[in-house]
């Protein structure tokens, strides 16, 4: 069975400083992993996805994540935080069952960005 664990429920950074949101996964085979972002009163939006191509994945809005099999990690980073990055972030693993894409979400990390 697949699962993801987000190691921080809240992260607070200053505008212009780096962002690191941590995620560890558990999977019986090489997983497909994603990061989604949820802004208040808006739908979940896909930031980036890893599906066994390059281990360093670039997403939208300057975010990127690195798949590290040895550490079973898929941490999300951004070099410089912007106020508009404040949101809830979810690490997600795809559960493949019956030939479709069921998503399994972590508990989320709330990112606060201070001026």
């Amino acid at each position, binding site marked *: 069975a697949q699962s993801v664990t987000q190691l921080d429920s809240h992260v607070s950074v200053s505008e212009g400083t780096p962002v690191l949101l941590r995620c560890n996964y558990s999977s019986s085979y090489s997983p497909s992993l994603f990061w989604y972002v949820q802004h208040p009163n*808006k*739908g979940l939006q896909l930031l980036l*996805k890893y599906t066994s191509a390059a281990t360093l994945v670039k997403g939208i809005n300057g975010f990127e994540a690195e798949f590290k099999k040895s550490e079973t990690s898929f941490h999300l980073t951004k070099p410089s935080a912007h106020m508009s990055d404040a949101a809830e972030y979810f690490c997600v693993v795809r559960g*493949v069952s*019956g030939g*479709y894409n069921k998503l399994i979400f972590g*508990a989320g990390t709330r990112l606060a960005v201070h001026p």
Partner: protein
Amino acid sequence: GAGVSQSPRYKVAKRGQDVALRCDPISGHVSLFWYQQALGQGPEFLTYFQNEAQLDKSGLPSDRFFAERPEGSVSTLKIQRTQQEDSAVYLCASSSHKPGQGAKRSSYNEQFFGPGTRLTVL
């Protein structure tokens, strides 16, 4: 183009009432998913449709929960005799997944999410 829409956006129900939540997926999307997101938690899978067929309902928490998609487009999630623990945001997502492709890791079809319906049961 139009994304996934859900209605109502907010619903307050008294315990014991029945509620119906609607999802309008992106036109032409074959796959439709329902998720439940409790306060402070990540979304959890409820059920999956491929066109009008409900292929997986393993996440529905009880037999009070029922979902349908009779014509393969709009879907309704119905909760009978609501309880306080049903209070959550209910999310709908659709994707253009076609049968037989889902098992390939590289063939992920992005799920597009609606804004959700926040259900509060008093």
